[in-house]
């Protein structure tokens, strides 16, 4: 079902767009603020953004407070914190990591790195 996959991906992209704006603005914002900003480049329905903001809230990515009649959203954690979590998964030594991702190099001990350096130096052609 390519259509379903597409719409799921588009929702995912919208999640990223919303988070990106809230991180960039560094202040709480309403759905209206986000919709207006996205509408500068492309049209997006208010209800769609509202739904996705609600999903992000349920996932624990956004915190919200009632301000008058509208919800005001802000990120639960900074972008750096999420990046750190991502890198921890990428560099970690859990069993999950060993097969879920395929790495260019594995983490090595200083002795092994020194052995690599020696191997490289001994073969480097004088140029």
């Amino acid at each position: 079902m390519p259509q379903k996959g597409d719409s799921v991906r588009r929702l995912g992209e919208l999640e990223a767009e919303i988070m990106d704006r809230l991180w960039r603005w560094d202040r709480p914002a309403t759905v209206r603020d986000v919709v207006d900003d996205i509408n500068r480049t492309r049209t997006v329905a208010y209800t769609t953004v509202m739904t996705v903001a609600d999903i992000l809230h349920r996932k624990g990515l956004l915190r919200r407070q009632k301000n008058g009649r509208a919800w005001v959203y802000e990120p639960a954690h900074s972008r750096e914190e999420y990046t750190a979590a991502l890198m921890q998964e990428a560099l970690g030594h859990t069993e999950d990591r060993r097969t879920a991702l395929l790495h260019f190099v594995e983490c090595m001990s200083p002795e092994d790195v020194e052995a690599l350096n020696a191997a490289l130096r001994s073969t480097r052609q004088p140029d």
Partner: protein
Amino acid sequence: MFHHLVLPLGIALGSALLAPGLLARARWAPHAPRLAIAGWLTLAVLMTAAVGLGLAQLLLPLAGAHDTMALIVACTTAEDDAAQPNGRLYLLLGASLAAAALWPVQALAREHRRTRRARMRHADLLRLVGRRSAPLGAVVIEHAVPTVYCLPGRSPQIVVSSGAVRTLSRRQLDVALAHERAHLRGRHHWLSAAAHAFGTSFRWLPLGRHLRREVPLLLEMAADDRALRHGSRQALAAALYEMAAGQVDRGTLSLSGSSTVVRVRRLLTTERPRRAAAHGALTMLAYCLAAVPLLVTCCAL
């Protein structure tokens, strides 16, 4: 009837105990990694099938027959229906093979579920904090520790940290990205998952122990070879070193006895055997032929 057990037992013991040591030490293997991977998978299938046949052999008296091999020969060669073995025998044979495959298949299914969950979680995070770079054909994450990896699955992606972009020269980065593209294009995560699942299930056998260690390393070598179409050996080896050194300097956890050292030595060695694949194929064929007398003896008994 027990002499009919000799053949399946011989194949099982040979592929589980004897062959793994030979294949792990084979000099041609690092220079023909894809052939060696095929060899490891063949051993895994052979062992599983032999255990299934052995099981069938033990159960056959219940169904009124006594020789599995004769049964298989009858299944495949009998032309008229009268000579065909009855349905109960097929069922018994099928059930024995399925029983033997159950454990590894179950482990594979578990592995698949586990990695899929981990990948989906990772993809969610990546979508939030990653930035797609069209010139690199990769997603860049802002982090000082240099790393390059790929996330296989539904929407496969290559991920590069900004630290890696800064650390590597353009040529080194190109060849590192080509390595990851080779993983994705070759569907290496399937083989890696299969090796991990089978190896973990049978880690008490030489086959499981060796296979779990060798197949991931051979997959890396296969991807290295493919990446060499996009860069020099020197560039790839230097890229491996730069990334490893960058991760150690940043105090990330590290393991010793690294396979990366083996890969760099292989890339830089000047003594590369010629026609390693042909050599390997002939060697494996020779071992199979050596098993023929066993086969003949068993069928003649």
